[in-house]
């Protein structure tokens, strides 16, 4: 939150009250004063306030009537009534109609006034914070809703495919076709398994406690490479790497593994079959402060219209061969959790370059 001073509007037809209030508090608060309720309405329309003080006895309308008038239009501003006489009738009206937060007796005690305003501002801030939280919660709920919708599709669809294949296989007597169907079932189950692993990664990434350790990029990349080179879609792909690491780079190895795994897997999956020498080139420059990671491929590339959308959850760019649309979302989440950034430059049909910049997490 900013350290802006509390913004107060004070309305009183006795001008010397305004002056003495201003003289006492102008150093700590942002104070606007007026002797007229009509002018007060104009000021309210042009400036945001946290707190309004109004005298009860004023010409045209009383403080309570003024509060009643502005209450619906400016519900957030905390209202404080200043009275010269202890008038029970005015007090009851103030609470019931004007919904005032506090009364201040005239002549006032400066410590009391200061306390009243500090408390009023606490209430103001608490309400604002609550409102902000509600907005965030609503957003989180909407995201959860979307997540459940898409996740349930991605969990059920491969299962229904398997059931479909089983139904088809039951109509078939030929053993050769049966084997073909088993192979399809295997692929479909694999797809489901990949999705489940992704969901678990997502969860670990979102909720897990980060474990910061020294990162050895050489080791990390070798490890990730080992898990993917036996994939059936790996094909003739060549992975080369150029790793320059000086000093101790610290980060969360779990998140880095998720990032490398997804990006390299994508490069494997979206190879361009028409190209003679499919490649992935990894380049890492790491110091004790920062790591720059470049993952370049000569795959299918990403269409320009898709480039700013691919990091959205469940966004699937291609019609064929595309996954569930969760992988790059997880990558993006992991990178922002590590305090870094990612850029893509890609030419459709030529290839893609992902550039990551990550700070070393030196606590």
């Amino acid at each position: 939150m900013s350290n802006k001073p509390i913004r107060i509007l004070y309305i009183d037809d006795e001008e010397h009250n305004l002056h003495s209030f201003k003289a006492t508090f102008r150093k700590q608060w942002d104070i606007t004063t007026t002797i007229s309720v009509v002018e007060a309405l104009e000021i309210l329309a042009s400036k945001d306030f946290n707190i309004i003080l109004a005298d009860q006895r004023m010409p045209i309308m009383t403080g309570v009537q003024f509060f009643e008038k502005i209450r619906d239009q400016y519900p957030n501003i905390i209202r404080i009534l200043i009275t010269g006489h202890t008038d029970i009738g005015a007090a009851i009206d103030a609470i019931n109609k004007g919904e005032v937060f506090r009364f201040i007796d005239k002549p006032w005690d400066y410590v009391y006034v200061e306390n009243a305003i500090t408390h009023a501002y606490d209430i103001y801030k608490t309400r604002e914070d609550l409102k902000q939280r509600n907005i965030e919660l609503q957003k989180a709920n909407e995201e959860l809703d979307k997540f459940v919708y898409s996740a349930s599709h991605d969990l059920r669809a491969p299962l229904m495919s398997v059931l479909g294949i089983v139904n088809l296989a039951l109509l078939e007597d030929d053993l050769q076709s049966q084997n073909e169907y088993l192979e399809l079932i295997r692929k479909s189950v694999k797809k489901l398994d990949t999705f489940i692993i992704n969901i678990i990664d997502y969860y670990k990434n979102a909720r897990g406690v980060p474990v910061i350790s020294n990162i050895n990029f050489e080791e990390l990349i070798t490890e990730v490479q080992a898990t993917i080179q036996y994939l059936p879609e790996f094909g003739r792909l060549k992975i080369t790497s150029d790793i320059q690491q000086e000093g101790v780079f610290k980060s969360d190895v779990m998140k880095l593994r998720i990032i490398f795994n997804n990006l390299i897997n994508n490069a494997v999956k979206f190879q361009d079959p028409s190209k003679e020498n499919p490649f992935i080139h990894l380049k890492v420059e790491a110091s004790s402060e920062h790591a720059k990671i470049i993952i370049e491929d000569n795959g299918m590339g990403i269409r320009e219209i898709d480039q700013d959308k691919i990091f959205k959850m469940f966004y699937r760019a291609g019609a064929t061969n595309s996954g569930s649309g969760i992988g790059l979302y997880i990558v993006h989440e992991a990178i922002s959790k590590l305090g870094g950034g990612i850029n893509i430059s890609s030419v459709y049909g030529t290839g893609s370059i992902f550039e990551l910049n990550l700070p070393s997490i030196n606590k």
Partner: protein
Amino acid sequence: MNFINIILIDDSAFDLFIYEKLLIKSGITRTVKTFNSAREALKFLISEESALPQTVILLDLQMPDMNGFDFIDAYAKVPEGLKNKIQIFMLSSTIDSRDIEKARSSPYIIDLLPKPLEIEVLKNRLA
């Protein structure tokens, strides 16, 4: 029963393969045309127009780029003459009540059939 012309629209290569085989095996049809993109399917329908025989479309719901409901929105604008030759069934694994309601209330979707497709259910709906 006469053979019917069927078009399958589904982004899943598995499902296209499975349902094409199933439909042919069942004897319900001899010609199945498959599209892995709803946009491509729509282009095809418009380009065929007068040449298109009576056709049944089995339309998936969740697809990238143009999903099943997007397809229906675009389909609403094709000439009536073309629509008269087409019957659309949505074929989806969705169990989301909003999807089910939306499919039910669409004037262009005859019914939402759950995946995996049961041939008997389709036969009954076409009879």
